[in-house]
Protein backbone atom coordinates (compact mmCIF):
# COMPACT_ATOMS: atom_id res chain seq x y z
CA UNK A 1 0.00 0.00 0.00
CA UNK A 2 1.02 3.57 -0.63
CA UNK A 3 0.02 4.92 2.74
CA UNK A 4 2.02 8.12 2.49
CA UNK A 5 0.26 9.38 -0.60
CA UNK A 6 -2.55 11.85 0.03
CA UNK A 7 -5.47 11.75 -2.37
CA UNK A 8 -7.81 13.90 -0.27
CA UNK A 9 -9.25 17.01 -1.87
CA UNK A 10 -11.59 19.69 -0.61
CA UNK A 11 -14.71 20.86 -2.51
CA UNK A 12 -16.09 23.77 -0.48
CA UNK A 13 -16.65 22.30 2.95
CA UNK A 14 -16.71 18.75 1.55
CA UNK A 15 -13.64 16.67 2.19
CA UNK A 16 -13.34 13.90 -0.40
CA UNK A 17 -11.13 10.86 0.25
CA UNK A 18 -10.05 11.04 -3.40
CA UNK A 19 -10.91 13.25 -6.39
CA UNK A 20 -12.88 10.66 -8.38
CA UNK A 21 -16.67 10.76 -8.51
CA UNK A 22 -19.24 9.63 -11.08
CA UNK A 23 -20.86 11.98 -13.56
CA UNK A 24 -24.60 12.09 -13.06
CA UNK A 25 -26.42 9.87 -15.53
CA UNK A 26 -23.55 7.41 -15.81
CA UNK A 27 -23.91 5.96 -12.36
CA UNK A 28 -26.54 4.19 -10.33
CA UNK A 29 -27.69 1.28 -8.24
CA UNK A 30 -27.12 -1.19 -11.09
CA UNK A 31 -23.37 -0.76 -10.66
CA UNK A 32 -23.20 -1.80 -7.00
CA UNK A 33 -22.48 -5.42 -7.93
CA UNK A 34 -19.33 -4.28 -9.74
CA UNK A 35 -18.11 -1.21 -7.86
CA UNK A 36 -17.65 -0.66 -4.13
CA UNK A 37 -19.16 2.82 -3.88
CA UNK A 38 -17.31 3.39 -0.59
CA UNK A 39 -14.07 3.62 -2.57
CA UNK A 40 -15.23 6.70 -4.49
CA UNK A 41 -14.64 10.36 -3.66
CA UNK A 42 -18.38 11.00 -3.72
CA UNK A 43 -21.55 9.57 -5.24
CA UNK A 44 -23.68 11.56 -7.69
CA UNK A 45 -26.88 9.73 -8.68
CA UNK A 46 -28.80 10.46 -11.88
CA UNK A 47 -30.38 13.94 -12.01
CA UNK A 48 -33.73 14.18 -10.32
CA UNK A 49 -36.74 16.10 -11.66
CA UNK A 50 -39.65 17.41 -9.59
CA UNK A 51 -42.22 15.14 -11.22
CA UNK A 52 -41.98 11.72 -12.91
CA UNK A 53 -40.80 11.98 -16.49
CA UNK A 54 -40.76 9.38 -19.26
CA UNK A 55 -37.77 10.66 -21.16
CA UNK A 56 -37.10 11.06 -24.86
CA UNK A 57 -37.93 8.82 -27.85
CA UNK A 58 -35.47 6.09 -28.86
CA UNK A 59 -32.81 5.74 -30.14
CA UNK A 60 -31.41 7.63 -27.18
CA UNK A 61 -27.77 6.84 -27.78
CA UNK A 62 -25.42 6.49 -30.72
CA UNK A 63 -21.74 5.86 -31.09
CA UNK A 64 -19.41 8.38 -32.70
CA UNK A 65 -15.63 8.29 -33.22
CA UNK A 66 -14.11 8.15 -29.72
CA UNK A 67 -17.38 9.02 -28.12
CA UNK A 68 -21.12 8.85 -28.03
CA UNK A 69 -24.16 11.10 -28.31
CA UNK A 70 -27.01 10.70 -25.86
CA UNK A 71 -30.37 12.29 -25.43
CA UNK A 72 -32.12 10.47 -22.62
CA UNK A 73 -34.35 13.34 -21.50
CA UNK A 74 -33.77 12.76 -17.79
CA UNK A 75 -36.14 9.84 -17.36
CA UNK A 76 -37.04 10.10 -13.70
CA UNK A 77 -39.45 8.82 -11.08
CA UNK A 78 -39.79 12.27 -9.54
CA UNK A 79 -38.86 13.81 -6.21
CA UNK A 80 -41.16 11.75 -3.96
CA UNK A 81 -39.63 8.48 -5.14
CA UNK A 82 -36.16 10.01 -4.82
CA UNK A 83 -36.77 10.88 -1.17
CA UNK A 84 -38.39 7.52 -0.46
CA UNK A 85 -35.89 5.27 -2.24
CA UNK A 86 -32.81 6.88 -3.77
CA UNK A 87 -31.57 8.86 -0.78
CA UNK A 88 -32.11 5.99 1.71
CA UNK A 89 -30.33 3.63 -0.71
CA UNK A 90 -27.21 5.85 -0.91
CA UNK A 91 -27.30 6.59 2.84
CA UNK A 92 -25.79 3.15 3.44
CA UNK A 93 -22.50 4.35 1.93
CA UNK A 94 -20.17 6.56 3.92
CA UNK A 95 -18.96 8.76 1.05
CA UNK A 96 -20.55 12.18 0.43
CA UNK A 97 -23.87 11.97 -1.40
CA UNK A 98 -24.34 14.76 -3.94
CA UNK A 99 -27.80 14.68 -5.54
CA UNK A 100 -27.96 16.25 -8.99
CA UNK A 101 -30.98 18.49 -9.45
CA UNK A 102 -32.67 19.27 -12.73
CA UNK A 103 -35.57 21.73 -12.72
CA UNK A 104 -37.84 23.01 -15.47
CA UNK A 105 -37.84 26.46 -13.87
CA UNK A 106 -35.92 28.43 -11.24
CA UNK A 107 -38.84 27.86 -8.84
CA UNK A 108 -38.48 24.09 -9.27
CA UNK A 109 -34.71 24.26 -8.64
CA UNK A 110 -35.36 26.22 -5.46
CA UNK A 111 -38.14 23.93 -4.24
CA UNK A 112 -36.20 20.71 -4.91
CA UNK A 113 -32.96 22.07 -3.45
CA UNK A 114 -34.72 23.15 -0.27
CA UNK A 115 -36.39 19.77 0.21
CA UNK A 116 -33.39 17.60 -0.72
CA UNK A 117 -30.89 19.66 1.28
CA UNK A 118 -32.95 18.99 4.42
CA UNK A 119 -32.03 15.32 4.17
CA UNK A 120 -29.27 14.54 6.60
CA UNK A 121 -27.60 12.09 4.22
CA UNK A 122 -27.14 14.80 1.59
CA UNK A 123 -23.66 16.36 1.65
CA UNK A 124 -24.07 18.86 -1.18
CA UNK A 125 -26.12 19.59 -4.27
CA UNK A 126 -25.19 19.56 -7.94
CA UNK A 127 -27.31 22.00 -9.91
CA UNK A 128 -27.67 20.69 -13.44
CA UNK A 129 -28.12 24.12 -15.02
CA UNK A 130 -27.40 22.61 -18.43
CA UNK A 131 -31.02 21.46 -18.76
CA UNK A 132 -33.53 23.59 -20.69
CA UNK A 133 -35.49 26.36 -18.97
CA UNK A 134 -39.06 25.51 -19.95
CA UNK A 135 -40.41 28.78 -18.54
CA UNK A 136 -37.81 30.75 -20.45
CA UNK A 137 -37.00 30.40 -24.13
CA UNK A 138 -36.14 26.70 -23.88
CA UNK A 139 -32.40 27.38 -23.82
CA UNK A 140 -30.41 25.96 -20.92
CA UNK A 141 -30.34 28.05 -17.75
CA UNK A 142 -26.57 27.87 -17.96
CA UNK A 143 -26.45 29.58 -21.36
CA UNK A 144 -27.29 32.95 -19.88
CA UNK A 145 -25.21 34.81 -17.29
CA UNK A 146 -28.21 36.55 -15.73
CA UNK A 147 -30.35 33.43 -15.49
CA UNK A 148 -27.40 31.49 -14.04
CA UNK A 149 -26.89 34.20 -11.44
CA UNK A 150 -30.57 34.36 -10.54
CA UNK A 151 -30.96 30.57 -10.28
CA UNK A 152 -27.93 29.99 -8.11
CA UNK A 153 -28.49 32.99 -5.86
CA UNK A 154 -32.08 31.89 -5.22
CA UNK A 155 -31.00 28.34 -4.39
CA UNK A 156 -28.26 29.84 -2.19
CA UNK A 157 -31.02 31.40 -0.04
CA UNK A 158 -32.51 28.01 0.87
CA UNK A 159 -29.46 25.95 1.83
CA UNK A 160 -26.03 26.32 3.35
CA UNK A 161 -24.87 22.98 1.95
CA UNK A 162 -22.20 23.12 -0.79
CA UNK A 163 -23.59 23.96 -4.23
CA UNK A 164 -21.89 22.57 -7.32
CA UNK A 165 -23.04 24.22 -10.55
CA UNK A 166 -22.74 21.91 -13.56
CA UNK A 167 -22.06 24.24 -16.47
CA UNK A 168 -22.95 23.67 -20.09
CA UNK A 169 -20.09 23.91 -22.60
CA UNK A 170 -22.54 25.09 -25.28
CA UNK A 171 -21.88 28.78 -24.71
CA UNK A 172 -19.83 31.56 -26.26
CA UNK A 173 -17.86 32.19 -23.09
CA UNK A 174 -17.91 29.63 -20.31
CA UNK A 175 -15.74 31.98 -18.27
CA UNK A 176 -18.51 34.58 -18.10
CA UNK A 177 -21.04 31.98 -16.96
CA UNK A 178 -18.54 30.60 -14.43
CA UNK A 179 -17.94 34.04 -12.92
CA UNK A 180 -21.66 34.62 -12.71
CA UNK A 181 -22.20 31.28 -10.92
CA UNK A 182 -19.47 32.03 -8.39
CA UNK A 183 -20.76 35.56 -7.79
CA UNK A 184 -24.17 34.01 -7.05
CA UNK A 185 -22.67 31.75 -4.40
CA UNK A 186 -21.69 28.47 -6.10
CA UNK A 187 -19.08 26.64 -3.99
CA UNK A 188 -17.75 24.66 -6.95
CA UNK A 189 -18.17 24.40 -10.71
CA UNK A 190 -18.48 21.19 -12.68
CA UNK A 191 -16.90 21.83 -16.09
CA UNK A 192 -18.77 20.62 -18.03
CA UNK A 193 -21.84 18.83 -19.30
CA UNK A 194 -22.00 17.27 -22.80
CA UNK A 195 -21.47 19.13 -26.07
CA UNK A 196 -24.53 19.57 -28.28
CA UNK A 197 -24.03 17.28 -31.27
CA UNK A 198 -25.69 15.39 -34.07
CA UNK A 199 -25.09 12.29 -36.19
CA UNK A 200 -26.98 11.19 -39.31
CA UNK A 201 -27.25 7.68 -40.73
CA UNK A 202 -26.06 7.76 -44.34
CA UNK A 203 -28.21 4.75 -45.29
CA UNK A 204 -31.56 5.76 -43.79
CA UNK A 205 -30.77 9.50 -44.09
CA UNK A 206 -32.26 9.98 -40.64
CA UNK A 207 -30.70 11.45 -37.48
CA UNK A 208 -29.26 8.67 -35.32
CA UNK A 209 -30.87 10.11 -32.17
CA UNK A 210 -34.65 10.06 -31.68
CA UNK A 211 -34.55 13.59 -30.26
CA UNK A 212 -32.47 14.60 -33.34
CA UNK A 213 -29.66 16.14 -31.30
CA UNK A 214 -27.94 15.10 -28.11
CA UNK A 215 -24.89 15.54 -25.95
CA UNK A 216 -21.48 14.34 -27.09
CA UNK A 217 -19.26 12.73 -24.47
CA UNK A 218 -16.19 10.53 -24.35
CA UNK A 219 -12.54 11.13 -25.21
CA UNK A 220 -13.58 13.05 -28.35
CA UNK A 221 -14.53 16.02 -26.14
CA UNK A 222 -11.66 15.89 -23.65
CA UNK A 223 -9.40 18.50 -25.26
CA UNK A 224 -12.32 20.94 -25.39
CA UNK A 225 -13.08 20.39 -21.72
CA UNK A 226 -9.42 20.60 -20.69
CA UNK A 227 -9.32 23.98 -22.42
CA UNK A 228 -12.47 25.11 -20.58
CA UNK A 229 -11.19 23.94 -17.19
CA UNK A 230 -7.97 25.83 -17.86
CA UNK A 231 -9.83 29.04 -18.77
CA UNK A 232 -12.28 28.81 -15.86
CA UNK A 233 -9.44 28.11 -13.41
CA UNK A 234 -7.81 31.38 -14.47
CA UNK A 235 -10.99 33.31 -13.80
CA UNK A 236 -12.45 31.94 -10.54
CA UNK A 237 -11.18 30.86 -7.12
CA UNK A 238 -13.62 28.04 -6.33
CA UNK A 239 -12.67 24.40 -6.86
CA UNK A 240 -13.43 23.03 -10.32
CA UNK A 241 -14.57 19.50 -11.03
CA UNK A 242 -13.38 18.46 -14.50
CA UNK A 243 -15.78 16.31 -16.50
CA UNK A 244 -15.33 15.26 -20.10
CA UNK A 245 -13.93 12.10 -21.65
CA UNK A 246 -11.67 10.97 -18.81
CA UNK A 247 -10.92 7.30 -19.51
CA UNK A 248 -7.85 6.62 -17.38
CA UNK A 249 -5.69 7.98 -14.58
CA UNK A 250 -3.55 10.08 -16.91
CA UNK A 251 -6.65 11.76 -18.34
CA UNK A 252 -7.70 12.68 -14.79
CA UNK A 253 -4.20 14.02 -14.09
CA UNK A 254 -4.39 16.16 -17.25
CA UNK A 255 -7.70 17.64 -16.06
CA UNK A 256 -6.15 18.42 -12.66
CA UNK A 257 -3.07 20.01 -14.20
CA UNK A 258 -5.49 22.28 -16.12
CA UNK A 259 -6.96 23.38 -12.79
CA UNK A 260 -9.49 20.78 -11.67
CA UNK A 261 -9.56 19.79 -7.99
CA UNK A 262 -11.64 16.70 -8.67
CA UNK A 263 -13.02 14.83 -11.67
CA UNK A 264 -16.26 13.21 -12.77
CA UNK A 265 -16.27 9.99 -14.76
CA UNK A 266 -19.16 9.26 -17.11
CA UNK A 267 -18.76 7.53 -20.45
CA UNK A 268 -15.73 5.50 -19.30
CA UNK A 269 -18.00 3.60 -16.90
CA UNK A 270 -20.10 2.38 -19.85
CA UNK A 271 -17.05 0.82 -21.49
CA UNK A 272 -15.58 -0.41 -18.26
CA UNK A 273 -17.88 -0.50 -15.24
CA UNK A 274 -14.93 -0.47 -12.84
CA UNK A 275 -13.22 2.48 -14.60
CA UNK A 276 -13.57 4.79 -11.57
CA UNK A 277 -11.77 2.38 -9.25
CA UNK A 278 -9.03 1.81 -11.82
CA UNK A 279 -8.61 5.56 -12.29
CA UNK A 280 -8.11 6.00 -8.53
CA UNK A 281 -5.41 3.32 -8.59
CA UNK A 282 -3.78 4.84 -11.67
CA UNK A 283 -3.67 8.28 -10.02
CA UNK A 284 -1.96 6.74 -7.00
CA UNK A 285 0.53 4.98 -9.24
CA UNK A 286 1.21 8.21 -11.12
CA UNK A 287 1.93 10.11 -7.91
CA UNK A 288 4.23 7.38 -6.72
CA UNK A 289 6.03 7.25 -10.05
CA UNK A 290 6.54 11.02 -9.93
CA UNK A 291 7.54 10.94 -6.27
CA UNK A 292 4.67 13.18 -5.23
CA UNK A 293 3.09 12.74 -1.81
CA UNK A 294 0.05 14.90 -2.22
CA UNK A 295 -2.38 15.17 -5.11
CA UNK A 296 -2.74 18.88 -4.30
CA UNK A 297 0.71 19.30 -5.84
CA UNK A 298 -0.84 18.69 -9.27
CA UNK A 299 -3.83 21.01 -9.23
CA UNK A 300 -3.45 23.82 -11.73
CA UNK A 301 0.24 23.10 -12.35
CA UNK A 302 -0.09 23.76 -16.08
CA UNK A 303 -0.72 27.41 -15.16
CA UNK A 304 2.44 27.80 -13.10
CA UNK A 305 4.52 25.94 -15.66
CA UNK A 306 3.57 28.58 -18.23
CA UNK A 307 4.28 31.46 -15.85
CA UNK A 308 7.74 30.06 -15.23
CA UNK A 309 8.64 30.13 -18.90
Amino acid sequence: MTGRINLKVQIGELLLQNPVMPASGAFGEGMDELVDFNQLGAVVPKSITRYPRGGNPTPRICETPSGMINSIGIQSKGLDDYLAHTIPYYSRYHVPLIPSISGDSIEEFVEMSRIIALEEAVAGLELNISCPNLKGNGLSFGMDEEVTYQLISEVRQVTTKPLLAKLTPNVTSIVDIAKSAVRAGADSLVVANTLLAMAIDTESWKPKIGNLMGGLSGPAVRPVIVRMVYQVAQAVDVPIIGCGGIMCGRDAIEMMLAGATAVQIGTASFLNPTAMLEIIEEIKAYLKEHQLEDIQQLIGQAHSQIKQE
Partner: protein
Amino acid sequence: MRDFRLKVVFNQQVSQRYWHLCLDASSIQEDIKPGQFFNIFCSDYSTEPFLRRPFSLYHFDKMHLEFLYAIKGVGTKALTHYQKGDTLNVLGPLGQFFQLPKNTREILLLARGVGIATLAALAYEAYERGIKVVGVLSARTNDDLVIADTLQSLGMVIYKVTDENKTSDIENVMERLSFILKQRTIDAVYTCGSRRLTRLLQRVSSEYGIYGEVALEENMGCSVGVCYACVCQIKEKEDSQSVRICREGPVFPLEKVLV
Protein backbone atom coordinates in the same frame (compact mmCIF):
# COMPACT_ATOMS: atom_id res chain seq x y z
CA MET B 1 -22.85 -10.31 -13.05
CA ARG B 2 -19.16 -9.64 -13.56
CA ASP B 3 -16.80 -8.28 -16.18
CA PHE B 4 -15.03 -11.46 -17.24
CA ARG B 5 -11.96 -11.76 -19.42
CA LEU B 6 -12.64 -14.84 -21.50
CA LYS B 7 -10.50 -16.66 -24.04
CA VAL B 8 -11.78 -17.27 -27.54
CA VAL B 9 -12.12 -21.01 -28.25
CA PHE B 10 -13.15 -20.38 -31.84
CA ASN B 11 -14.66 -17.56 -33.88
CA GLN B 12 -15.68 -18.68 -37.32
CA GLN B 13 -17.80 -17.60 -40.23
CA VAL B 14 -20.75 -19.93 -40.70
CA SER B 15 -22.53 -18.25 -43.61
CA GLN B 16 -22.12 -15.13 -45.68
CA ARG B 17 -23.29 -12.80 -42.90
CA TYR B 18 -23.15 -14.93 -39.75
CA TRP B 19 -20.33 -15.76 -37.37
CA HIS B 20 -20.17 -18.20 -34.48
CA LEU B 21 -18.12 -17.16 -31.44
CA CYS B 22 -17.27 -19.60 -28.68
CA LEU B 23 -15.64 -18.47 -25.42
CA ASP B 24 -14.07 -20.43 -22.61
CA ALA B 25 -16.56 -20.02 -19.75
CA SER B 26 -14.88 -22.28 -17.21
CA SER B 27 -14.26 -19.29 -14.92
CA ILE B 28 -17.96 -18.35 -14.74
CA GLN B 29 -19.75 -19.52 -11.61
CA GLU B 30 -22.92 -17.49 -12.16
CA ASP B 31 -26.17 -19.11 -13.14
CA ILE B 32 -26.94 -18.37 -16.80
CA LYS B 33 -30.38 -18.65 -18.43
CA PRO B 34 -31.68 -18.47 -22.03
CA GLY B 35 -32.66 -14.93 -22.98
CA GLN B 36 -29.88 -13.33 -20.96
CA PHE B 37 -27.14 -11.41 -22.70
CA PHE B 38 -23.52 -10.33 -22.34
CA ASN B 39 -22.09 -6.91 -23.18
CA ILE B 40 -18.88 -7.50 -25.11
CA PHE B 41 -15.99 -5.12 -25.70
CA CYS B 42 -15.28 -5.75 -29.40
CA SER B 43 -11.99 -3.82 -29.33
CA ASP B 44 -9.77 -2.20 -26.74
CA TYR B 45 -10.55 1.52 -26.34
CA SER B 46 -10.48 2.23 -30.02
CA THR B 47 -11.90 5.19 -31.89
CA GLU B 48 -14.49 2.94 -33.53
CA PRO B 49 -16.18 0.81 -32.31
CA PHE B 50 -16.24 2.80 -29.11
CA LEU B 51 -18.99 1.24 -27.00
CA ARG B 52 -19.51 -2.40 -26.10
CA ARG B 53 -22.05 -4.46 -28.01
CA PRO B 54 -24.78 -6.54 -26.35
CA PHE B 55 -25.14 -10.13 -27.58
CA SER B 56 -27.73 -12.61 -26.42
CA LEU B 57 -26.56 -16.12 -25.79
CA TYR B 58 -27.01 -18.67 -28.50
CA HIS B 59 -25.79 -21.73 -26.61
CA PHE B 60 -23.97 -22.37 -23.36
CA ASP B 61 -22.83 -25.04 -20.96
CA LYS B 62 -20.47 -25.15 -17.98
CA MET B 63 -17.42 -24.78 -20.20
CA HIS B 64 -18.53 -22.56 -23.08
CA LEU B 65 -20.48 -19.45 -23.97
CA GLU B 66 -21.53 -19.33 -27.60
CA PHE B 67 -22.82 -16.41 -29.61
CA LEU B 68 -24.17 -16.36 -33.13
CA TYR B 69 -23.85 -12.89 -34.60
CA ALA B 70 -24.43 -11.15 -37.91
CA ILE B 71 -22.06 -8.52 -39.23
CA LYS B 72 -24.14 -5.38 -38.91
CA GLY B 73 -21.64 -2.58 -38.36
CA VAL B 74 -18.22 -1.64 -37.04
CA GLY B 75 -18.69 -3.50 -33.74
CA THR B 76 -19.57 -6.89 -35.14
CA LYS B 77 -17.00 -6.41 -37.91
CA ALA B 78 -14.29 -5.79 -35.30
CA LEU B 79 -15.41 -8.87 -33.39
CA THR B 80 -14.67 -11.06 -36.40
CA HIS B 81 -10.96 -10.21 -35.99
CA TYR B 82 -10.70 -12.06 -32.68
CA GLN B 83 -9.10 -15.47 -33.00
CA LYS B 84 -8.55 -18.55 -30.92
CA GLY B 85 -6.54 -17.68 -27.82
CA ASP B 86 -7.42 -13.94 -27.84
CA THR B 87 -9.27 -12.59 -24.82
CA LEU B 88 -12.45 -10.52 -24.73
CA ASN B 89 -14.01 -8.43 -21.95
CA VAL B 90 -17.44 -9.90 -21.42
CA LEU B 91 -19.87 -8.32 -18.94
CA GLY B 92 -22.73 -10.48 -17.76
CA PRO B 93 -24.91 -12.43 -17.49
CA LEU B 94 -27.36 -9.56 -17.82
CA GLY B 95 -31.12 -9.12 -17.95
CA GLN B 96 -34.23 -11.21 -17.46
CA PHE B 97 -34.55 -14.67 -18.97
CA PHE B 98 -37.31 -16.69 -20.65
CA GLN B 99 -39.84 -18.46 -18.45
CA LEU B 100 -41.23 -21.85 -19.36
CA PRO B 101 -44.60 -22.10 -17.55
CA LYS B 102 -45.19 -25.17 -15.39
CA ASN B 103 -46.33 -28.31 -17.22
CA THR B 104 -45.34 -26.91 -20.61
CA ARG B 105 -45.17 -29.73 -23.14
CA GLU B 106 -44.76 -27.90 -26.42
CA ILE B 107 -43.66 -24.38 -27.35
CA LEU B 108 -43.71 -22.32 -30.53
CA LEU B 109 -40.82 -20.07 -31.51
CA LEU B 110 -41.20 -17.28 -34.08
CA ALA B 111 -37.86 -15.69 -34.88
CA ARG B 112 -36.39 -13.37 -37.47
CA GLY B 113 -32.76 -12.88 -38.43
CA VAL B 114 -30.32 -12.80 -35.56
CA GLY B 115 -33.29 -13.24 -33.20
CA ILE B 116 -33.12 -16.91 -34.17
CA ALA B 117 -29.96 -17.24 -32.08
CA THR B 118 -31.70 -15.79 -29.00
CA LEU B 119 -34.57 -18.25 -29.29
CA ALA B 120 -32.22 -21.14 -30.07
CA ALA B 121 -30.90 -20.88 -26.50
CA LEU B 122 -34.46 -21.45 -25.29
CA ALA B 123 -34.97 -24.26 -27.81
CA TYR B 124 -31.93 -26.11 -26.42
CA GLU B 125 -33.20 -25.72 -22.85
CA ALA B 126 -36.67 -26.95 -23.84
CA TYR B 127 -35.09 -29.90 -25.64
CA GLU B 128 -33.12 -30.86 -22.52
CA ARG B 129 -36.27 -30.68 -20.43
CA GLY B 130 -38.20 -32.88 -22.84
CA ILE B 131 -40.38 -30.05 -24.11
CA LYS B 132 -41.26 -30.23 -27.80
CA VAL B 133 -40.31 -27.27 -29.99
CA VAL B 134 -41.89 -25.95 -33.18
CA GLY B 135 -40.08 -23.08 -34.85
CA VAL B 136 -40.98 -20.68 -37.63
CA LEU B 137 -37.69 -19.10 -38.64
CA SER B 138 -37.62 -16.07 -40.91
CA ALA B 139 -34.65 -14.47 -42.65
CA ARG B 140 -33.64 -12.58 -45.76
CA THR B 141 -32.05 -15.60 -47.39
CA ASN B 142 -31.81 -19.32 -46.85
CA ASP B 143 -28.11 -18.80 -46.20
CA ASP B 144 -29.02 -16.78 -43.08
CA LEU B 145 -30.92 -19.72 -41.56
CA VAL B 146 -27.66 -21.27 -40.42
CA ILE B 147 -28.94 -23.10 -37.37
CA ALA B 148 -32.24 -24.37 -38.78
CA ASP B 149 -30.70 -27.73 -39.67
CA THR B 150 -29.08 -28.11 -36.24
CA LEU B 151 -32.42 -27.58 -34.51
CA GLN B 152 -34.13 -29.93 -36.96
CA SER B 153 -31.57 -32.62 -36.30
CA LEU B 154 -32.62 -32.56 -32.63
CA GLY B 155 -36.14 -33.47 -33.65
CA MET B 156 -37.62 -29.99 -33.57
CA VAL B 157 -40.20 -29.12 -36.20
CA ILE B 158 -38.78 -26.20 -38.15
CA TYR B 159 -40.47 -24.13 -40.84
CA LYS B 160 -38.25 -21.80 -42.85
CA VAL B 161 -39.56 -18.65 -44.47
CA THR B 162 -37.37 -16.22 -46.39
CA ASP B 163 -37.55 -12.95 -48.30
CA GLU B 164 -35.76 -14.53 -51.25
CA ASN B 165 -38.43 -17.24 -51.54
CA LYS B 166 -41.16 -14.65 -50.94
CA THR B 167 -42.49 -16.75 -48.07
CA SER B 168 -41.74 -14.36 -45.20
CA ASP B 169 -44.70 -12.00 -45.65
CA ILE B 170 -47.14 -11.63 -42.75
CA GLU B 171 -49.99 -13.48 -44.51
CA ASN B 172 -47.86 -16.52 -45.14
CA VAL B 173 -46.44 -16.56 -41.62
CA MET B 174 -49.95 -16.15 -40.20
CA GLU B 175 -51.14 -19.10 -42.26
CA ARG B 176 -48.23 -21.15 -40.99
CA LEU B 177 -48.97 -20.22 -37.35
CA SER B 178 -52.68 -21.02 -37.72
CA PHE B 179 -51.82 -24.41 -39.19
CA ILE B 180 -49.44 -25.19 -36.29
CA LEU B 181 -51.87 -24.02 -33.63
CA LYS B 182 -54.69 -26.11 -35.09
CA GLN B 183 -52.55 -29.24 -35.40
CA ARG B 184 -50.77 -29.04 -32.06
CA THR B 185 -51.29 -28.10 -28.44
CA ILE B 186 -48.92 -25.20 -27.95
CA ASP B 187 -48.52 -24.11 -24.31
CA ALA B 188 -46.37 -21.01 -24.84
CA VAL B 189 -45.08 -18.84 -27.69
CA TYR B 190 -41.84 -16.85 -27.94
CA THR B 191 -40.52 -14.33 -30.43
CA CYS B 192 -37.45 -12.24 -31.17
CA GLY B 193 -36.01 -10.23 -34.05
CA SER B 194 -38.92 -8.42 -35.69
CA ARG B 195 -41.47 -5.82 -34.61
CA ARG B 196 -43.81 -6.94 -37.37
CA LEU B 197 -43.71 -10.57 -36.21
CA THR B 198 -44.03 -9.50 -32.57
CA ARG B 199 -47.26 -7.67 -33.39
CA LEU B 200 -48.48 -10.72 -35.29
CA LEU B 201 -47.70 -13.07 -32.41
CA GLN B 202 -49.41 -10.69 -29.96
CA ARG B 203 -52.60 -11.03 -31.98
CA VAL B 204 -52.25 -14.80 -32.24
CA SER B 205 -51.43 -15.40 -28.58
CA SER B 206 -54.33 -13.25 -27.45
CA GLU B 207 -56.71 -14.95 -29.90
CA TYR B 208 -55.70 -18.44 -28.77
CA GLY B 209 -55.18 -17.46 -25.14
CA ILE B 210 -51.59 -18.72 -25.06
CA TYR B 211 -48.85 -17.36 -22.78
CA GLY B 212 -46.15 -15.53 -24.70
CA GLU B 213 -42.83 -13.73 -24.30
CA VAL B 214 -40.71 -11.47 -26.50
CA ALA B 215 -37.00 -10.66 -26.33
CA LEU B 216 -36.24 -7.10 -27.47
CA GLU B 217 -33.09 -5.54 -28.91
CA GLU B 218 -31.86 -1.97 -28.60
CA ASN B 219 -28.62 0.00 -28.75
CA MET B 220 -27.20 0.08 -25.24
CA GLY B 221 -24.96 2.36 -23.25
CA CYS B 222 -24.14 0.86 -19.88
CA SER B 223 -26.21 -2.38 -20.05
CA VAL B 224 -26.58 -2.37 -16.24
CA GLY B 225 -29.61 -0.12 -15.85
CA VAL B 226 -27.81 3.12 -15.19
CA CYS B 227 -28.03 5.22 -18.35
CA TYR B 228 -31.64 4.69 -19.51
CA ALA B 229 -30.60 4.56 -23.18
CA CYS B 230 -32.31 1.25 -24.03
CA VAL B 231 -35.94 1.70 -23.15
CA CYS B 232 -39.27 0.46 -24.46
CA GLN B 233 -42.89 1.15 -23.64
CA ILE B 234 -44.76 -1.34 -21.49
CA LYS B 235 -48.50 -1.41 -20.82
CA GLU B 236 -49.21 -0.86 -17.14
CA LYS B 237 -52.95 -1.02 -16.36
CA GLU B 238 -54.51 1.81 -18.39
CA ASP B 239 -51.20 3.54 -18.84
CA SER B 240 -47.85 2.89 -20.48
CA GLN B 241 -44.45 3.29 -18.92
CA SER B 242 -40.90 3.44 -20.15
CA VAL B 243 -38.73 0.57 -18.88
CA ARG B 244 -35.12 -0.45 -19.42
CA ILE B 245 -34.52 -3.30 -21.85
CA CYS B 246 -31.21 -4.19 -20.16
CA ARG B 247 -32.73 -4.46 -16.70
CA GLU B 248 -36.49 -5.09 -16.81
CA GLY B 249 -35.91 -6.96 -20.12
CA PRO B 250 -34.74 -7.98 -22.63
CA VAL B 251 -37.44 -10.65 -22.15
CA PHE B 252 -40.93 -9.26 -21.54
CA PRO B 253 -44.44 -10.74 -21.39
CA LEU B 254 -45.62 -10.60 -25.00
CA GLU B 255 -48.91 -8.82 -24.30
CA LYS B 256 -47.23 -6.04 -22.33
CA VAL B 257 -44.87 -4.52 -24.89
CA LEU B 258 -45.97 -1.71 -27.17
CA VAL B 259 -44.25 -2.28 -30.50
